[in-house]
């Protein structure tokens, strides 16, 4: 892996005029990763689809009430006379077991799935970074205790933790309003459950980084100047370990989306009528043969999204954190 690449002429020209900013350097390295670039394009299309797609595809007359509905109301309109219709001009992805339009539900389900992915990662980063930084910085028995807990959580298969936790706290959170739409309480529960079961790898990465950084001279200097521990951790240590945090939280979004699908597939995740890509799949086994469109499209959306995010994560790793190895 020790290939030496000479700077291109343009790079030399660039240096003559002006030094490149870190952002430009990052973009330059990211661009080299063709799959990541392609995935970035794919992700933009997917985001446009779930953000604006509702304006185009989610409108129509809801037969049982006879009203003309748009947006999420249309996605939740159930017309049992139309149940389990195969894909057609009117319903390009077909209809589900109670006659809701699957295309519209993949759009609004996508909003939920991505929201869960992003917020679960925020929880994951907060917990993981805190545990990792505190363990690495203070060392001693604090480190021992936190790392044993981390290891114990890594040993138990995360799906079991997910099932138990979503069973334990599920159904006790009321509906909340956010970004102009209502989220059922189960969404909030799932965000925390996924966040609290996925921080362990991040904690280990942050700890390892903090361990090596805290021996540096500038940290000793800060300490000699009487800077507080909290300030050293947040102002000096964490900004220097931001690259692996960004990379692993990008990949974390992909993991959280899959985790949501697993929990919802088992019927313990997001509760209907709110759609998510995961809960659209929960009756799939029953209709494996009779209605393949029921599980094909939501699954395809999950796969494409997760694939794009994974490629972007790989590209970011190359761009931000060239020294790290994959999968650790």
């Amino acid at each position, binding site marked *: 892996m020790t290939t030496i690449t000479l700077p291109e002429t343009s790079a030399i020209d660039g240096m003559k005029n002006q030094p490149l900013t870190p952002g430009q350097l990052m973009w330059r390295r990211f661009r080299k990763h063709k799959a990541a670039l392609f995935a970035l394009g794919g992700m933009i299309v997917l985001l446009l689809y779930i953000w604006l797609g509702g304006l185009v595809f989610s409108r129509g007359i809801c037969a049982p009430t006879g009203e003309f509905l748009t947006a999420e109301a249309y996605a939740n309109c159930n017309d049992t006379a139309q149940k389990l219709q195969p894909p057609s001009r009117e319903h390009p992805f077909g209809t589900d077991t109670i006659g809701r339009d699957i295309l519209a539900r993949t759009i609004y389900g996508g909003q939920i799935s991505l929201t869960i992915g992003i917020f679960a990662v925020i929880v994951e980063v907060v917990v993981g970074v805190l545990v990792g930084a505190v363990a690495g910085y203070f060392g001693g028995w604090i480190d021992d205790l936190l790392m044993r807990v981390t290891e114990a959580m890594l*040993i138990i298969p995360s799906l079991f933790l997910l099932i138990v936790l979503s069973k334990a706290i599920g159904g006790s959170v009321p509906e909340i309003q956010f970004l102009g739409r209502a989220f059922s309480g189960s969404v909030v529960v799932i965000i925390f459950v996924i966040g609290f079961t996925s921080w362990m790898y991040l904690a280990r990465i942050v700890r390892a980084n903090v361990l090596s950084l805290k021996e540096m001279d500038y940290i000793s200097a800060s300490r000699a100047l009487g800077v507080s521990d909290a300030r050293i951790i947040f102002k000096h240590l964490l900004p220097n370990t931001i690259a692996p945090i960004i990379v692993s939280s990008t990949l974390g979004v992909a993991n959280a989306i899959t985790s949501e699908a697993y929990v919802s597939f088992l019927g313990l995740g997001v509760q209907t009528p709110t759609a998510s890509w995961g809960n659209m799949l929960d009756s799939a086994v029953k209709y*494996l043969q009779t209605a393949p469109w029921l599980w094909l499209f939501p699954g395809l959306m999950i796969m494409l999204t997760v*694939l794009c995010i994974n490629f972007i994560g790989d590209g970011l790793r190359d761009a931000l954190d060239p020294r790290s190895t994959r999968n650790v």
Partner: protein
Amino acid sequence: MTTYILRRLLLSIPVIIGILFATFALARLIPSDPCRAMLGEKATDDVCDQFLERHGLNKPIPVQFAVYMGEIFKGDFGNSFRFSMPVTEILSQRLPITIELSLAALSISLLVGIPLGIISAVRHNSWVDVLTMLWANIGVSMPVFWLGLMLAYFFSLTLKGTPFQLPPSGRLSPGLIPDPFFEVWNMTLTEGTTIYIIAEFISRMNILNSILSGDWKVFKDAVQHMVLPAVALSTIPMALIARMSRSSMLEVLGQDYIRTARAKGLKQRTVVIRHALRNALLPIVTVVGLSLGGLLGGAVLTETVFNLAGVGRILYEAITARDYGIVQAFTVVIAVFFVALNLIVDISYAYLDPRIRLN
């Protein structure tokens, strides 16, 4: 080496006790009482008191924990509320199915993943490499159960009537009842003895049992039923293993001693397998160890899709029904399994890399 193994063994004792406690606590975390979950919402307080009394659930939590620990050390996991039979009995019926499925999936992921990783590293940037990596990325991006659904649909419906048709669910075709290998061998075993329990446990793994008893009709049928779930379950670990093998091999292949080996005129095969692979194995072993956790979690989903009555499925049902006995027993078994597995991974580190042994 022996001291190293002994030290690792001693270190795993507190971990196991910790997990036992966590399991016990988690099972009690699940809200609503087991009585009404079992006997229905309309159960009267009197009936429930009797139920709690019978299962020792009315005692204080610390007492329950002490009783529970004591029984575990005697190998007794108590009774399942739902099935009214000893949990160990259920365990011995379900565990073979999951073990068989996981072993099949693990074998596939190792036998395909490692060679693919090696080939992509040796032919770095060739079309084989690009395709393998693309496929590995798709593999880790697919929800296990969705892949299972696609496979089941494709092989049981699209290919219906062709020789490639495969059954989408169950373990054996209806009507096919395998004879336990010990009966075929005319072994006289007394029911209840340890040997009988072990023999019965092994005989419940259909593929192994049919090989042992030489029943090729059952063997073929069992393998056909195993292919789809095993392939579905193997995809994610396979992709991870292929990726890790590739990056680890790439790193090793760039080192000076490999160039020296090539300069000595050694064959490509010898250089790759004898010189490079052994040094590249360490990170691969780590990933294999880690992906086994995912394998067990994935087993729940795979067993759901393919309608297999394994451990994962029953554990999920037990959590939903608050069947403490089963939840505890299975988590303990899984935890002990993982601690043992980590031990094996650590020992194989020490075996692969003498430096670890000496520290």
